[in-house]
Every structure is written in structure tokens, then in C-alpha cells.
């Protein structure tokens, strides 16, 4: 792109009478004006009034609806930041990324709480729950899940530290001992309960 004679700009900006231009520059001015006239003369299809007025007669969307709409539609967001602040921001992000954080993404545990994981294989079960001394042997309070549909049911719960006895309840009626537990103990009803020891997660 070649810069054009500044007098052409001045003439087009009304700062210089075009009679004062040499003929060749005047032709350039006329050429640009003709191009602009073409763009200006091209018909613009009007007739927006019915459409706009119909929109105005409809009740305006609620504030919540507009908020939801704003969040759900892509927007171009421009942030104007001084370079020095962008450097500081980059340094802060790097610091947060590089400095290890002890706590994982799991639940926040108290000093006397630990995580208990229950796993049992029940290929034909519809529901599996765990009951034990931690929930007063009440069924239906701690369900296990089989998300993969591979017959292996799992549950993870936070419990106060301590030693508990527990069993699985399959399909709401069949009480099953977890034989994978480290220890088993016979209860007053002649069944074997599994033993769970919950230790504090924090050190």
C-alpha cells in the first residue's frame, strides 16, 4: 500500500479546495469519491419498523433470563492491562502452579476424621448399602454405586476416627459380610461382622 499525496487527503477532508489541486490529483480525488458514492448509492433494504416494533411490544425478558442468556452466549471480552501488570499476573500464576499444595481436591477433613472406602462385588445386585456401628446399623443411609455396571460396588464416606463393625445389605434384604476386610468378628446373632479402622487423614 503506497501512501498517497497528502493534498488528496486534505481535499477529501475539506481542508483544501480541489481547484487548487493539479489535474492528476483531482482525478484521484474524484475516483475515491466515485467509489464512495457507489457504496452510498447501493440500495439498503429497509422495512425494519414492523419487526422492531413487534419486538418492543413483547414484554422485556426478566433480569434473570437476561443473565442466563448473557452467560450462555459467547462474548468477546477485551481486557486492557498494562504490560507491567500482565507480568505480575503471569508471575502470580506461575507461583500458584509451581508451589505444591498439600491438600488435595477431596473433602476438607477435621483432625479426628478419616476416609473410609467400601468395595464389594455383587454382580446381580440392584442396590447395595453399607450398615454398621457408624450409622447405628440403619439401612438406606449409605448406598454403594456401580457406575461402570461391572458388578463392583463402591462408596467413599468420611467418618470419625475409630473402630467400627459393618456389613453390606444387598437388595435391601440380604446381609453380607465383607470378607475382604482385614478382620472379622462374630456378633451376638451368630453372624460375622467386618471390622473397619478409620484413622485420621491429617498428620
Amino acid at each position: 500500500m503506497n501512501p498517497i499525496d497528502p493534498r488528496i487527503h486534505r481535499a477529501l477532508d475539506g481542508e483544501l479546495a480541489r481547484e487548487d489541486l493539479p489535474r492528476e490529483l483531482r482525478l484521484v480525488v474524484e475516483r475515491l469519491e466515485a467509489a464512495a458514492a457507489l457504496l452510498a448509492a447501493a440500495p439498503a433494504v429497509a422495512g425494519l419498523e414492523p419487526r422492531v416494533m413487534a419486538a418492543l411490544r413483547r414484554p422485556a425478558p426478566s433480569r434473570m433470563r437476561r443473565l442466563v442468556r448473557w452467560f450462555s452466549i459467547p462474548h468477546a471480552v477485551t481486557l486492557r492491562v498494562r504490560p507491567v501488570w500482565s507480568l505480575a499476573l503471569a508471575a502470580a500464576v506461575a507461583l500458584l502452579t509451581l508451589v505444591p499444595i498439600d491438600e488435595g481436591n477431596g473433602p476438607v477433613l477435621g483432625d479426628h476424621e478419616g476416609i473410609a472406602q467400601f468395595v464389594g462385588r455383587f454382580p446381580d445386585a440392584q442396590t447395595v448399602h453399607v450398615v454398621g456401628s457408624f450409622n447405628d446399623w440403619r439401612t438406606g443411609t449409605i448406598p454403594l454405586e456401580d457406575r461402570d455396571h461391572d458388578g463392583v460396588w463402591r462408596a467413599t464416606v468420611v467418618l470419625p476416627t475409630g473402630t467400627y463393625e459393618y456389613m453390606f445389605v444387598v437388595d435391601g434384604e440380604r446381609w453380607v459380610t465383607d470378607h475382604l476386610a482385614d478382620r472379622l468378628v462374630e456378633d451376638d446373632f451368630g453372624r460375622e461382622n467386618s471390622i473397619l479402622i478409620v484413622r485420621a487423614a491429617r498428620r
Partner: protein
Amino acid sequence: MRGDPSDTEVVARVLGGDREAFGLLIRRYETGLLRFATRMLGSRDVAADAVAESLVRAYRHLASCRDPSRLRTWLYRIVANRCKSYLARRDVADVPLEEAPPVADVTDNEAALERAEQLALVARALAQLAPDQREAFVLKHVEGLSYQEMADVTGERIPTLKMRVHRAREALLQVLEDHA
């Protein structure tokens, strides 16, 4: 006989509850706004959507128009911002060229065809410009705004706008000369 009411009078009527009076403002400015948006976006359909949305927005925020006597530039500003939002979301290269020469008709004479081809050439050259240069050129030379009005529309300083118009002229002239 009383002439058409001024923008200030119409705005006062609308703000006073006469919603239908807004139709007068639409009829008054839609042609220029549509032409501007079409040149910015390269498509009449997209431009019609942009202007319609802008007018609805203008109505809903009419009370925030601090100087109704300068309603025209206020409306251009809303449409310009709408066009920029659209262009920011769209692929830069995706500027449709609706100004292709019309299919020749037996009734077309040679001059009309040449004019259509020239228009297609200029429109294509305009589409190649950076959006801020395109905006400045169209506001100045197609819509006939003064640099002060352009500053009101765009929020830019006058020297910046002059520079953009100059760059746009140079780019357009280059294209025209290449095809002379």
C-alpha cells in the same frame, strides 16, 4: 403546516409513554444504519439483524441518551458496537461478499453492468480492510459524518480517525488502480 418533529421531541414522546412514536425514529434512520451495517458486515441479512437488535436496545435504553439532539450519532454508536461484537466472534476471513455483480439481464445495459462490477470491486476492497479502517471510511465517506460525529460514534480521537480514513483511502485506491 407543522414539519416533522425533531429527534428531541420524538424522544420525549417515547419516554413519556408513546411507544409507537419510536417507529418515526426507525423510519428516519434505518436506511443509513442498514447501509452502514451492511458495509461493515458484508451481508444485508446479518446487517438487518444487527440493526434490528440495536434499535430494540436503543429503545430500552433511550433514557440513557443524554443528548437527544444527537440521537443519530448515538444510534450509529449502538450499531457500530453491535457490528464489532459480531465481527469479533466471526472468523476474520469470513466476510461474505454479497455485492457480486448481478446476473446479466437482457435489459441491462453496458453502463449498468460496469457500475455493478465497479461496486463489487469496491465492496470487495472494503471487506479486505481492517474493521476499524472500514468503519472510519464508511462513516466518513458513505454516511457523511464529520470527524467530530465519528468521534462521538466510535469514542476515538479525531487524529486516530483521520489516520484510519487515510489508510483506508490508500488501500482502496491501490485496489482500484490494480484493476484499472
